[in-house]
């Protein structure tokens, strides 16, 4: 245990940014194994956390500023928003929330519900389809696997702006325009290669001995997938859920193209309805509804991150 002194010691008091972060890393294992007493010299033990917290607090301020600014702006009268760029003075004008909620053709709750439906469909689709595909890529030996993998990566490399028009033409043949199907259905067909690749990498991190033990016990691939792999990739699934939720919640271009009437609009489309680059915009209402629409995102993130940390380490497999 002496090498830690020399290696983590020097970079720690230096303190700033990434260097300290990396060096401080191994200490974190402590809280889970709970075997720390006397392991570290006093000085580092006391100074370390303080420096660390200081860095984190300063960084947090930079991170949280935009949210604070949005909340403060949402509480200002429209004419004040661009006259006072900073956070002060704070006013408590809640009428933006009332106006914003009622300004569009439907109450804002309508768009929140639409977005929720869209996002739920996409989350379920992505989790099921991508994990199945990822298992095959990571664990099965089959004909054409590498080519398939390369093709899958290729699908990530074309900008959406050139594929959306042919795709639109395709979906308009099926009469699905102005429904959520063109946005949700592809997720059930694992078209989000990002998540397939993500899950492949995670499954590869799971020791093969576990599969093999299961196979010796007579498990087929489906049982291995459901009983062994799936429980062990909770962090990857939590990541998929959080990202799919966030990206689809904020998705503008796809929704813009496919959803044409306001009763089908999602939150990002509704938010744009407050704005007019050529004329009067209701910025206050836009900020107010933006703040509101962040609430579900934040809740999902808070719930999701509990599963994010429920990895291998806590499932009790040793």
């Amino acid at each position: 245990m002496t090498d830690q002194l020399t290696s983590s010691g020097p970079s720690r008091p230096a303190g700033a940014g990434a260097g300290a972060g990396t060096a401080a890393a191994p200490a974190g294992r402590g809280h889970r194994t709970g075997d720390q007493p006397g392991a570290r010299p006093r000085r580092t033990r006391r100074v370390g956390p303080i420096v660390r917290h200081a860095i984190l607090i300063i960084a947090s301020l930079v991170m949280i500023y935009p949210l604070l600014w949005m909340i403060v702006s949402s509480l200002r009268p429209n004419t004040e928003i661009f006259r006072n760029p900073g956070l002060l003075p704070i006013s408590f004008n809640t009428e933006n929330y009332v106006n914003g909620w009622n300004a569009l053709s439907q109450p804002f709750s309508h768009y929140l519900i639409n977005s929720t439906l869209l996002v739920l469909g996409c989350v379920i689709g992505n989790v099921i389809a991508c994990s199945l595909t990822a298992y095959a890529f990571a664990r099965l030996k089959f004909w054409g696997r590498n080519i398939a993998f390369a093709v899958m990566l290729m699908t990530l490399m074309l900008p959406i702006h050139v594929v959306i028009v042919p795709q639109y033409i395709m979906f308009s043949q099926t009469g699905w325009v102005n429904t959520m199907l063109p946005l949700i259905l592809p997720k059930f067909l694992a078209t989000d290669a990002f998540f397939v690749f993500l899950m492949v990498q995670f499954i590869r991190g799971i020791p093969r001995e576990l599969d093999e033990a299961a196979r010796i016990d007579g498990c087929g691939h489906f049982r291995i997938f459901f009983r062994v792999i799936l429980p062990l990739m909770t962090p990857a699934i939590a990541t998929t859920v959080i990202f799919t939720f966030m990206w689809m919640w904020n998705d503008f271009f796809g929704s813009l193209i496919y959803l044409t009437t306001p009763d089908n609009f999602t939150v990002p489309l509704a938010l744009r309805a407050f704005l007019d680059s050529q004329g009067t915009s209701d910025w206050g209402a836009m900020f107010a509804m933006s703040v509101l629409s962040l609430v579900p995102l934040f809740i999902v993130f808070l719930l999701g991150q509990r599963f994010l940390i429920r990895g291998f380490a806590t499932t009790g497999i040793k």
Partner: protein
Amino acid sequence: MSAIGELTSMAKGRGRGGVREKHPDNKPALVFMAPWLLGLLGITLIPMIASLYLSFTDYSLLAAPKWIGLQNFVDMFHDARLMTSLKVTLIYVIVGVPLQLALALALAVLLNEGIKGLSFYRSIFYLPSLLGGSVAIAILWRQMFGTGGLVNQIAGMLGFTNLPGWISDPSTALGTIILLHVWTFGSPMIIFLAGLRQIPQMYYEAAEVDGAGRWRRFTAITLPLLTPIIFFNLVLQVINAFQSFTQAFVVSGGTGGPSDSTLFYTLYLYQKGFTQFDMGYASAMAWLLLVIVAIFTVINFFVSKFWVFYDD
């Protein structure tokens, strides 16, 4: 082993054994892969091939495409704005991606520790990514980096004057967008965190029994076991960064200005396709981008053989 590694080992293995031995899982694979295959053939591939076809046409979106052979590709070589956009994008990829990943990894490792308020910090650090490419971000960025913005105000208090408007000055505008990119490090950070959590505790315990110190455990266990995830982030962030659009679009109001200094490749492609009604050219640009990104990705996969560690 990486995918490329497998490719080579497959080639070697081709000589011996029958199909059955080499591909013992063909049947279950077909079941597991069924959704993806359907999606590929039914949804993804058709628009891709259509765009390839369109890249050989003069297509305005508003009228039927006309076959013009390689003309779009020839034109690209004489397009000064295209070269500008390639340069801007390359700078963004080469500077922005490593910076963002380093920050994300450092903070993920830091946040993986048992410090107080862990989940609080994690949520706070993720905030900028939640806000994403919303219109609010564009306004905020102007208010922070504008001539009379927060940054200049703080610098003014410290005695610096005559500072540029960071966003409107062609020599600094790209820098602020790179900063915006680095600032939204939440997504790779989350992936790193998930990766860290997946490392089996037993390894650490075993190492501890062997008397390995913390730093040693970090370099010998954490880092190697995290390499698949680092690799994933690297590959995907490079692919995404080449297609970066929203931030520049939102901050520059879709123009790529000032003086084309933030004219990202995809932004120019979008302008060509949708505002200049030249979707044929835009499609050709997209396929050039695909080739460039594919080259970077193949290099990434190739190099990964030397540093990425898989348990299988």
